């Protein structure tokens, strides 16, 4: 039984990671790049209006980071719950 609980705990932690990372995924693209463009654009970073930068560059860069963060988190989680591949 203990094993079963352990597996459920593993899955729950995985789901938390997914929800948190996908919230960031949503925020940087849909929120900053599209929905909040009028609020973000008056803020300037160099020559970029901020909303324009998120839509053109920021979201893509952050997407890459999100995946590698997930890879790292899951490799640790697999080991923590002893379900990692040999």
């Amino acid at each position, binding site marked *: 039984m203990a*094993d079963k609980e352990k*597996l459920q705990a*593993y*899955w729950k932690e*995985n789901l938390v990671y*997914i929800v948190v*990372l*996908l919230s960031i*995924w949503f925020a940087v*693209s*849909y929120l900053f*790049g*599209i*929905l909040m*463009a009028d609020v973000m*654009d008056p803020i300037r*970073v*160099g*020559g*970029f*209006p901020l909303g*324009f*930068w998120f*839509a*053109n*560059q920021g*979201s*893509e*860069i952050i*997407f*890459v980071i*999100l*995946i*590698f963060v*997930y*890879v790292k988190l*899951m*490799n640790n989680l*697999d080991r923590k719950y002893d*379900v*990692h*591949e*040999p």
Partner: protein
Amino acid sequence: MSILAWTWIIVGFSFALYIGVAIWAKAKTTGDFYVAAKQVHPVLNGMATGADWMSAASFISMAGLIAFLGRDGAMYLMGWTGGYVLLALLLAPYLRKYGKYTVPMFVGERYYSQSARVVAVICAIFVSFTYVAGQMRGVGVVFSRFLQTDINTGVMIGMAIVFFYAVLGGMKGITYTQVAQYCVLITAYLIPAIFISVMFTGNPIPQIGYGSQVSESGAQLLGANGYVLDILDKLHTDLGFAEYTHRGAKSTIDVFMITLALMVGTAGLPHIIIRFFTVPKIRDARASAGWALLFIAILYTTAPAVAAFAKTNFIQSVNGVAYEDAPSWFKNWEQTKLVGFEDKNGDGIMTYAKDPAVNEIKVDRDIMVLANPEIAKLPNWVVALVAAGGLAAALSTAAGLLLVIASAVSHDLMKNVISKDMSEKTELVWARVAAGVAVVIAGYFGINPPGFVAQVVAFAFGLAASSFFPVIILGVFWRRANKEGAMLGMISGITFTAAYIIYFKFVNPSGNTAANWLWGISPEGIGSIGMAINIVVTIVVSKLTKEPPQDVQDMVASLRYPRELAK
């Protein structure tokens, strides 16, 4: 040496490289043919996925598309990259754990239904053919523009090359040629971009360059000082266009829905999903999605910089300039009819403006990438490299799609529906035959492009978004999802999406305006709603009907853990 001579040499060399790689990576088993024996290193798989994903359109047309859409063009940048986050977090590791060869096979086993599998096969083949026709055409177009051959001759040459390495090498051959093709295409894309960025801003990183101020020499070339984007915004308002960095013609909801449909569609495209079956481990599947997106993002973050530089330079060096003083690249590309000048007011000066009655310049968006090496005054071999890059992008995507078609036919139809006790050797022969036939059909569509190809690209993404994506996600994350739910969900999602697109693209194209759209959502973005319908129907119907058999539920549970657990 002339541009033409350089182009034949570099293109010829790149083709020889692909053929050499294919001979080296010949497939010996069905495992080799379908999933490269699951032995591909995650970084190499990332490169292969990048080449698989970035098509002729990404390479040649995307920067131009952005240059003319301005801010709205970002929906392609976000839409065609964000799907990889969904793949890495929600799909790739679980499908890799499942460990079989094709997407329809997963759908069939998870929903314990031969008919679900057949529906999935039909979707996979339809989506892939839609896409591949455009790629073969792309090969022909690159040949005709750079090598001055007939478009059809170009398509035939492309067919011969793809036929050779896809039929011989299967997934194994395709994977390693795609790695080579990625290297060719990214080099060809970055060199002109870096030089243009240096020329205007002195910064060798285009991603930063187009957010900087122009350098002293750049100011002379562009005749203006300050930030590149400010110069571009001002040029746009002066000529009557909307500001480049501000909202364009599309409504917020439409941009939102198109971005979502592209992201979800990306994550549901079989030729991308199948790439994650080729790595040795589950953790490799996750990592390889990260590498894939990194390699893709290198091009996708460069494209908007190229767009901004090329558009600024284009307006500055053409608008208000006497036709006799037009830059040499303008005269060169005029012969291909990608740019043109019609002296409406007879003053001999070229005028570029939003108002079609005043505007005298005709411009094809592809010029934003194709003319770059000449604009940056780079040597002839760089122009040749761009040709090889465009071909690499088109060929690699075509090969990946053809493999999906081949494996759907040989593995999902021949082996599992028609003749279950087929030997592995026979199956491999069938896989090769299917790949060969698919190349020929794709080539036929490349030579005789059906007029609707451009119209149906929205279809490919809409269909993938409203069929595969919800069914796979629910199949992994919700044990209770059953056959009845998935079948009705897929059918209602596809029917709604297809009906909406067919109505506005074919039945009533003149009514294809925002006023007539459902909640202002264009056919390009409707896949998002199709996806939502699929999810809701699957959940409601599954709840109302009986739960899936125990062995299926056990299979779903086992997908969640990387290691097989002792009972």
